């Protein structure tokens, strides 16, 4: 049994030795009890030398190894251990490294019996490990020395290694920079903490881009830290799946780059500026003989007309000329000699000889040692400004001249609102205006104010105050008493201006307008007179201007316009359509013709026309226009419009009266004559009738002469009747009237005519049915019709012809349309027309047809009384008769007689 046990232990020792270098055993006192195998072989140590020794003893005085105390604790607490490495103290001076593993073992009752374990010689391994650790330390130290950030993430993107520069660079997330920290957490936090300026506002996108770059095999990008530093990040994926990042602070480089860019831009700008500036720039080299020009910019060429090629190598003095101030030239020379800046305005000359005023500034360019290497000359063309100054001077001179010559005083006053305004300038005419000298004006601010006549002071002050308040230009007219005591009218115009010191400046001019005011006063009186005349004149006075282009406007329409026309002066002036609306249509063409005459031929026009005023009242206006041409081409119409309605009516009545009078005179004459004739004829008829009658009485009933005597009697009776009518006409007796049917009258006349007219004349009768009666003397009307027909038959003569008699009814408007006039009242009329197709009459004859004793018949054929009797009869019946005729075509007489009831109205109206 014991043998088996021993064999088993032996077997185990063999196993141990097979898997390690050696095996060992330790007793409960922790002293080595067994030591075997290759220990001696490997370490060259006799195991007997270490049997019975403790670890401390074996270790000797060498430095305690790593984990030594831990190892002692393990032993003390009987714990198993592995990988304890130490350097045993060997006599031969060899210092190998050994690595031990051990396990305590116990008796069945738990009594500690000691340790059993194996050992290995690991010198090469430990040394290699130590070397590697040292290299790593070195690398880390080296990384620590770098200003560049260095960071390593493992394949899971967890932070493995970083140097302090990395933490510095990413100061905003420094608190999170710990081993195992996830990359995403770092950048996410940086974004959240707003420490990545370029991510602001596009956080998600930036994170995505950043992760994509990070995961690329290799990426380089720049980002700006919140403190403005620029970081260049190079990331490289490593073979094991991790990432290496190098973070370089490139702020300086970026800045320098920007600075360089700026510098380059400035240089370019400078070059561009020099070549584009309108100033001439030349550079001379005083180290060369005669200080020649070595550079001239395009501005110089533009100014002087010399090209760069023409001036390079020459001294600048070729620009000078006869007008150049010698003093300035020597000033330049002196400055060049003394190597100091110099500036002057010089009169130079262009290549084409034109004078050129230049502001010249010359500056020396020094090298590091203070030696003059170049001179830079900058020339600015001040010709315009010099000429402008010249012009200004001339202008001032001119203004002074104007101020001295215009009939007013120009002044400038300055003061504070509320305070007195002192005069700062008064032109010389003040003496003439006021009697006070300019010195007196300048010395006494209240001079003008005190000259103002008291009742004008309020207006004067308020105009000034208002202007000061609004800073708007103002004018005021007032009376003053000048130095000589004369009262004068002044008009002052001024414009306030706010000065920067809070004061207000008044630029003004004051005129003596006494004459003008007096003239205005006279004009006003005259206008007042005119207006008064115009408004009292029983007409409208107007003035109208017609421009050459045909447009027209009224400059004046007097007040009575509305009273007379119903239209206001404004309506009358502006409404071009008034004429069309108010003038009677039938007179419009005539009116327009007159206006055309006044407008196109500028001839005076006088026209009377009927019209309807605005109130619908019928009027007659008389319009007189006197046109005159102005030099401007405008045509002026001076016109006057009168209401001549009453006059017109009176004229009408007068004409009527005159006609009546003429007629009366004529009739009186005829009456006298006719009376005489009638008397004689009647006397002549006395024996014819009386003796014929006596003879008839005396003759037997069957006497053959009786018939002849009857014929004599008939003729005598007809003669008697005729004479009676002539006498009636001459007497103008009112006819004895009664309501009669005109148709019946005409038929009766027809019957009588039919017997007497020659057979070559036919009579056609057309009488309207059921006409109202007319108030008439039937016998007289029969005579009228017969008379007209007899005349018609005469007109037809021996030819075959026809007399047409028509009777119908018409209304008064037809009467008007027919152009009949003369006291015809409105209402119904009976019309009789007697037409023939005889020889007709010429207009001259037609005009006189109703005149008594006017006849176209031969001597003895007619008295010329027929138509005048007809006319008289018709007039006495309150009717009218008109004649129309055309030579060769015939004649128509038209009679209009009022129906009985119309006649009543006429009488009532009369």
């Amino acid at each position: 049994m014991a043998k088996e046990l021993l064999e088993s232990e032996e077997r185990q020792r063999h196993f141990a030795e097979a898997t390690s270098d050696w095996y060992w055993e330790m007793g409960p006192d922790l002293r080595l009890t067994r030591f075997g195998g290759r220990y001696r072989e490997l370490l060259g140590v006799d195991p007997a030398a270490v049997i019975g020794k403790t670890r401390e003893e074996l270790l000797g005085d060498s430095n305690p190894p790593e984990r030594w105390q831990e190892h002692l604790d393990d032993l003390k607490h009987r714990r198993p251990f592995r990988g304890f490495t130490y350097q045993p103290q060997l006599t031969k001076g060899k210092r190998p490294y050994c690595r031990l593993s051990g396990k305590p073992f116990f008796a069945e009752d738990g009594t500690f019996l000691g340790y059993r374990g194996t050992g290995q010689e690991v010198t090469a391994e430990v040394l290699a490990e130590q070397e590697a650790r040292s290299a790593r330390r070195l690398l880390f130290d080296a990384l620590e020395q770098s200003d560049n950030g260095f960071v390593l993430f493992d394949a899971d993107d967890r932070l493995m290694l970083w140097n302090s520069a990395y933490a510095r660079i990413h100061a905003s997330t420094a608190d999170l920079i710990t081993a195992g920290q996830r990359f995403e957490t770092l950048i996410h936090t940086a974004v959240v903490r707003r420490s990545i300026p370029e991510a602001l506002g596009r956080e998600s996108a930036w994170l995505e881009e950043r992760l994509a770059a990070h995961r690329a095999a290799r990426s380089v990008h720049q980002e700006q830290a919140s403190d403005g530093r620029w970081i260049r990040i190079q990331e490289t994926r490593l073979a094991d799946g991790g990432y290496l990042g190098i973070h370089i602070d490139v702020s300086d480089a970026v800045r320098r780059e920007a600075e360089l860019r700026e510098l380059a831009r400035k240089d370019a700008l400078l070059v561009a500026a020099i070549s584009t500036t309108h100033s001439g720039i030349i550079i001379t080299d005083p180290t060369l003989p005669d200080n020649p020009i070595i550079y001239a910019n395009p501005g110089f060429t533009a100014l002087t007309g010399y090209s760069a090629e023409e001036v390079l190598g020459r001294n600048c003095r070729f620009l000078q000329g006869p007008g150049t101030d010698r003093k300035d030239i020597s000033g330049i020379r002196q400055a060049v000699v003394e190597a100091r800046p110099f500036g002057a305005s010089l009169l130079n000359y262009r290549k084409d000889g034109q004078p050129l005023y230049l502001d010249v500034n010359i500056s020396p360019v020094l090298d590091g040692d203070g030696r003059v290497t170049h001179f830079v000359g900058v020339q600015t063309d001040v010709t315009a400004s010099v000429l402008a100054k010249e012009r200004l001077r001339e202008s001032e001179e001119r203004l002074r001249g104007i101020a001295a010559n215009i009939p007013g005083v120009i002044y400038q006053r300055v003061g504070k609102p509320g305070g007195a305004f002192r005069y700062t300038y008064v032109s010389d005419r003040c003496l003439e205006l006021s009697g006070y000298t300019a010195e007196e004006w300048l010395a006494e601010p209240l001079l003008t104010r005190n000259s103002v006549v008291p009742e004008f002071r309020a207006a004067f002050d308020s105009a000034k105050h208002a202007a000061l308040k609004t800073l708007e230009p103002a004018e005021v007219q007032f009376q003053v008493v000048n130095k000589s005591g004369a009262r004068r009218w002044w008009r002052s115009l001024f414009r306030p201006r706010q000065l920067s010191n809070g004061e207000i400046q008044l630029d003004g001019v004051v005129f003596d307008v006494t004459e003008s005011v007096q003239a205005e006063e006279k004009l006003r009186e005259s206008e007042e007179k005119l207006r008064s005349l115009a408004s009292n004149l029983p007409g409208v006075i107007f003035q109208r201007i017609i421009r050459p282009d045909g447009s027209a406007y009224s400059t004046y329409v007097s007040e009575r316009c509305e009273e007379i026309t119903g239209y206001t002066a404004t309506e009358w002036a502006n409404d071009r359509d008034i004429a069309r609306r108010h003038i009677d249509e039938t007179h419009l063409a005539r009116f327009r013709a007159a206006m055309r005459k006044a407008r196109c031929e500028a001839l005076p026009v006088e026209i009377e026309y009927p019209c309807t005023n605005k109130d619908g009242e019928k009027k007659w206006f008389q319009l007189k226009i006197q046109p005159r041409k102005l030099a401007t081409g405008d045509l002026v119409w001076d016109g006057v419009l009168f209401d001549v309605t009453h006059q017109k009516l009176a004229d009408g009545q007068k004409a009527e009266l005159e006609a009546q009078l003429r007629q009366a005179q004529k009739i009186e004459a005829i009456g006298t004559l006719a009376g005489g004739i009638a008397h004689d004829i009647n006397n002549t008829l006395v024996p014819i009738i009386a003796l014929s009658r006596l003879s008839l009485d005396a003759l037997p009933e069957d006497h053959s002469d009786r018939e002849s005597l009857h014929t004599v009697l008939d003729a005598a009776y007809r003669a008697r009747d005729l004479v009676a009518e002539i006498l009636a006409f001459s007497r103008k007796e009112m006819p004895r009237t009664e309501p009669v049917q005109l148709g019946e009258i005409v038929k009766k006349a027809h019957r009588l005519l039919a017997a007497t007219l020659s057979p070559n004349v036919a009579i056609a009768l057309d009488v309207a049915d059921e006409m109202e009666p007319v108030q008439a003397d039937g016998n007289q009307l029969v005579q009228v019709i017969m008379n007209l027909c007899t005349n018609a038959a005469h007109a037809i003569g021996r030819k075959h012809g026809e007399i047409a008699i028509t009777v119908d009814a018409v209304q008064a408007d037809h009467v008007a349309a027919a152009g009949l006039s003369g006291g015809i009242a409105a209402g119904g009329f009976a019309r009789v027309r007697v037409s023939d197709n005889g020889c007709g009459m010429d207009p001259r004859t037609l005009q006189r047809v109703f005149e008594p004793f006017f006849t176209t018949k031969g001597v003895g054929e007619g008295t010329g009384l027929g138509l005048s009797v007809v006319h008289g009869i018709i007039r006495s019946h309150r009717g009218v008769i008109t004649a129309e005729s055309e030579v060769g075509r015939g004649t128509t007489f038209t009679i209009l007689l009022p129906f009985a009831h119309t006649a009543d109205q006429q009488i009532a109206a009369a």
Partner: protein
Amino acid sequence: MSRILVIDDDRIVRETLKAILTRGRHEFHFANDGRQGLAAFTEYKPDLVITDLLMPEKEGIETIRDIRRLAAKVPIIAISGGGRVGNMSFLQVAEQFGANRAFAKPFEPKEILQAIDDLVAKAAATP
């Protein structure tokens, strides 16, 4: 039979009246104008006067007036060929001035004779 004084300046009228008055069996005397007529009236003392109105020397109206001053009752017949005074015809005027009847020329013999008979009879009947 009556004594008739005819005053007319027209011969043919006088002749005609002569014929008519003869037919009526009257006596008659003629005067050529008013003056003669007035003288004849005093001398002849007619029963009736027939006078024209328009006459030279002394016209009819005046003659009638003068006759009426001399003899208020002697009937007067005025005859006239026409003419007017104002609004009235001569015949009307003549009646106003005293003529008993007036006839316009030309007249019918019958009406003259009848008027003479009537007027003379009437005058005789008047006291």
